[in-house]
């Protein structure tokens, strides 16, 4: 469950990027967060993972009120939320398997469990045959699938996808959206941040539209209307 109540975010010099945001996302929901570039979508994602503090209002993720979260608790919050980005954020000197394993290594997981989890998530994203390749040796879509695999290793309740298809052609973009839908079918809440009209219109899921830092539309089975 994600709940944002009267969220405001203002940067220095009075630059307001989020204005009176009220959102409630139920567990297991698939929501598209749409809007033009620079409307505050990424800032919203950053507040959800505890990277940005809101100026006022309340952000609740599951049992966490992250407006009151301490610095020490942030890593534990992030293990509950998988995040993927447009630029994949993979380490070029590690294989796809090592990239996924890295997320577990840095959290102190033992090797046996790492091997088991990595094998499972690589199978889910359909990359078990290419796991020993380096990011430069696979396509953009496969790199994004690796990033999704990495986001899944902690079995998160929520998956935030910030422009995941932004660097992909339409075939690869559709594959990624299909994968996100499959993950959503397992019960994971998926928040897709995008400005890709075609993707949003084909999904026929809930669409929240943001313009100039404020919610201008929130529709079940919605469409991209800006």
């Amino acid at each position, binding site marked *: 469950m994600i709940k944002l109540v009267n969220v405001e975010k203002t940067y220095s010099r009075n630059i307001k990027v989020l204005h009176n945001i009220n959102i409630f996302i139920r567990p297991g929901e698939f929501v598209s967060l749409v809007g033009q570039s620079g409307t505050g979508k990424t800032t919203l994602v950053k507040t959800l993972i505890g990277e940005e503090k809101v100026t006022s209002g309340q952000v609740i993720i599951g049992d966490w009120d992250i407006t009151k979260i301490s610095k020490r608790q942030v890593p534990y919050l*992030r293990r509950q939320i998988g995040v993927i980005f447009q630029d994949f*954020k993979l380490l070029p000197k590690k294989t796809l398997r090592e990239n996924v394993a890295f997320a577990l290594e840095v*959290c102190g997981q033992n090797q046996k469990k790492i091997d088991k989890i990595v094998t499972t998530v690589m199978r889910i994203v359909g990359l078990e045959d290419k796991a020993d390749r380096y990011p430069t040796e696979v396509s953009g879509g496969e790199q994004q699938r690796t990033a999704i695999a990495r986001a899944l290793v902690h079995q998160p309740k929520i998956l935030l996808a910030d422009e995941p298809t932004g660097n992909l052609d339409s075939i690869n973009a559709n594959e990624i959206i299909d994968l996100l839908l499959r993950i959503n079918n397992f019960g994971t809440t998926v928040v897709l941040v995008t400005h890709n009209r075609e993707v949003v219109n084909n999904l026929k899921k809930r669409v929240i539209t943001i313009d100039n830092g404020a919610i201008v539309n929130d529709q079940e089975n919605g469409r991209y209307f800006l």
Partner: protein
Amino acid sequence: MFLSMIRIIKFSLQDITRNIWLSIVTITILALALLSVNMLLTVQAVSQGAVKAIKEKANISLYIKADASEENILSLKKQISSMALVKSVQYTSKQDALNYFRDHNKNNPQVLNALKELGWNPLSPSLIISPGDVDKSEDLINDIKKIDSDIIESRDFSNNSALLSKINSITSKINDAAMVLIAIFVLTSMLVAYNSIKVAIYIHRREIEIMRLVGSPNSFIYMPFMISAVIYALCATMLIIALFYPFLSLLQPYLEVFFTGYNINIVSYFVENFWPVFGVQFLGVAAISILSSWLAIRRYARV
């Protein structure tokens, strides 16, 4: 916990080896700081050894007339022994002086033959006075000058306090210069360690970003850099140990020549004080590099 520590050390070693030239420069600067500290210690050890040796030899000799009676000599000895600034008085009789002279020149037959041809003991009895406090030698000399006794033939007042104050003055000046040098090196070391970690953070910025993204504990993000700082300190200390002992071994013969007659052994000083000297130095340089790394991490790694 153990597994995390192993991984932290692995990441730290990767960081050091991937940036090997930067690591070498950092270790060299830290080693130079330690070198300046050790040079200061060497100067201090040598000067302390010299002062101690000079103090041990800072005796005043009173030569007694050859015809003075034993009774008068012992009476004079008693009078001097009772002085507040006197530690002890040693009486060397004519015969003792002769025995010592013969023993001292046993390998010099010409001197011994000359003594034999003379047919009588030309040496005077003497009183060797050890001062209680060498720094007050001047006062003791004045007190002894005041003794009015017919049996005193001559007095040897070679003034060691002047020599001691000269050594102390030179040591103090060297210490002052060395302290300035150490301060410069400590500051340089901090800046170099800070920049090394800053560059390491820049090189690892993507890893750090991903670590934060996937929920790595902050300790896991900053600990490899802290471990690198400790490894730099350890390498610098080991380097200085490896370089300094051969240097001391080369220096020792020159010290022996310079301080002929005095027992000054700089190598054994550093061997006997190995842990206090190099242990403290390691802790000091580790503290400097950890502090610098911590400042760099806080600023550039945002943990």
